[in-house]
């Protein structure tokens, strides 16, 4: 079939449009979804692009259904995904707990909005705990937090590979600001860049008559014995731990000699990177540390940084959701921890810089 993107090209798009293109070039075959701001345009672009490339779409009755139909598509062996936000993400956690239990490579794009409840639609980082830990269970999932449109593109593609390679549900965590804003980026076909796309395999509806030509493929999520469940969770958690070091990603700069390291993720990282650049120009010993995967956390590097740094400033558009993940990763480190928490509010480079200067006095 014709590739959606033949040659690399520059584009100036909204984040939601970027996600639709990324899913398309990643070979996603089906999107199931339910409208919610700020992710709507992912569906809008997908429904415009999909028929041209013979991809499917189903608008479901709610996010429970969007999640469970995505599971159906994935179990049929198709690269399927959904997108949601806020209260929709809350509902999405029921199907995602089943995906976690059954090790299903479901891909979900979350464009965070304010919370709790219906709240606001543009800007927030308040779905970190929900997305990383999910519902009942142990949070065995992978969460990429993007901070630019190029990353939205790169990590949406990557999410499909991660999900199908490791068979853990995988999330791309953006936010309303990234979703709606326009930004330049380069669109490309992953295979043309040497990124091989991981193949799919049906969980059910396999070749051959079950019971005659092969055993039936039977998947369950209920166990009658505690021991059975214990074994299952231990095995999955063991698998997760094993892959965590190769899945975890982060970026950091100037942390070696820093008096202050600023920790952030996602869209807030943009402000932090700018603030750190400016502070360095003014001679301040400031660095940044930014986990790209919030689950698994880059535990080793985070701890190492926290052992070296004198002070750490955690900046996030939430009341400590990133901070909780970080403190767990860096438990025992000596650095003084300071915070700039603005739940549901944007954080500017100026604010970060001002707070940093205060801490460095």
């Amino acid at each position: 079939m014709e590739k959606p993107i033949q040659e690399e090209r520059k584009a100036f798009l909204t984040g939601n449009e970027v996600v639709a293109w990324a899913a398309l070039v990643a070979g996603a075959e089906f999107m199931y979804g339910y409208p919610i701001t700020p992710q709507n345009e992912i569906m809008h672009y997908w429904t415009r692009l999909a028929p041209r490339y013979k991809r499917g779409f189903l608008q479901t009755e709610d996010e429970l259904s969007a999640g469970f139909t995505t599971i159906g598509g994935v179990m049929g062996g198709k690269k399927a995904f959904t997108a949601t936000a806020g209260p929709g993400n809350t509902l999405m956690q029921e199907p995602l707990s089943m995906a976690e239990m059954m090790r299903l490579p479901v891909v979900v794009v979350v464009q965070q909005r304010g919370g709790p409840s219906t709240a606001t639609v543009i800007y927030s980082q308040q779905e970190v705990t929900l997305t990383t830990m999910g519902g009942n269970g142990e949070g065995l999932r992978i969460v990429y937090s993007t901070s630019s449109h190029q990353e939205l593109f790169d990590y949406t593609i990557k999410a499909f590979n991660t999900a199908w390679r490791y068979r853990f549900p995988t999330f791309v965590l953006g936010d309303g600001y990234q979703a709606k804003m326009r930004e330049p980026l380069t669109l490309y076909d992953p295979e043309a860049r040497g990124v091989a796309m991981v193949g799919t395999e049906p969980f059910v509806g396999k070749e051959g008559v079950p019971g005659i030509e092969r055993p039936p493929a039977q998947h369950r999520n209920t166990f009658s014995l505690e021991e059975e469940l214990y074994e299952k969770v231990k095995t999955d958690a063991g698998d997760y731990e094993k892959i965590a070091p190769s899945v975890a990603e982060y970026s950091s700069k100037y942390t070696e000699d820093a008096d202050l390291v600023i920790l952030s993720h996602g869209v807030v990282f943009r402000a932090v990177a700018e603030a750190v650049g400016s502070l360095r120009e003014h001679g301040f010993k400031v660095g940044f540390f930014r986990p790209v995967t919030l689950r698994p956390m880059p535990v080793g590097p985070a701890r190492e940084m926290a052992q070296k740094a004198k002070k750490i400033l955690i900046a996030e558009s939430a009341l400590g959701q990133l901070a909780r993940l970080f403190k767990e990763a860096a438990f025992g480190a000596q650095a003084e921890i300071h915070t700039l928490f603005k739940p549901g509010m944007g954080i500017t480079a100026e604010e970060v810089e001002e707070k940093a200067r205060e801490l460095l006095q």
Partner: protein
Amino acid sequence: MEAVRTEMPAPAMPRSWRVDTKPHKFCPGCGHGLVLKCLGQAIDELNIQGRVVFGCDIGCSLLSWDFFNIDTIQTHHGRTTPVMVGLKRARPELVTIAYMGDGGGYAIGAQHLVNAASRGENITVVLANNTQYAMTGGQMAPTTLPGQKTETTPYGREPETTGYPFMGPEMVAAITREGAYVARGSVANLRQLKSYIKKALENQIAGRGFSFVEALSGCPTNWRTNAAETWDFIEEEMPNYFKVGEIKASAAAKKGEEDG
């Protein structure tokens, strides 16, 4: 002299059943096994074992996750319909069957049943109506009969405060278009129930749209009934509210009835 039989013949099991998981896990006298016998026979007769995917709900239907020699997905309470919808959309060549209880279909998963039916999703839903939540110990369901005692209606269901029994097939028939197949059978008439399920599957295979069969089913464990009382409830009490028969069938499906 005639040869003397030394062994009892094994009870005839549908070919599509998984022999190594029998005897099944349902209580003695449970209706689920009978519904699944009809389903197994229908699958055998249509010779579709190689392209069926069976989905079971949470409720006593979960016990059927390894019941058939058929690819199977056990889902969540009420969510079997969307899982099968998603699968069918992605793999239209498969025959997808969503199996659930009355609580799963009419209470927690009602929005999925309503919308799958109204969108005309080309799947088959088979629902065992045992008038209560069996797996959780016998609480009231939307289908509980007026006056019926359950754990949450210990003095009997009062319609004034808790409503009247949910008429599932009638509702599905009302919201589906021509081409849908909707029937209510009973474990008291297995031949008829099998023919309804078979026609529902044929409807899906022909791509005519949503197909739905409710089966009146028994739960002696939670009803606390002996065999005679169980059959009496299924045959005498339940039909007072739940009329057995085909509620919506295209001319083609009706013809199947005459032929079969």
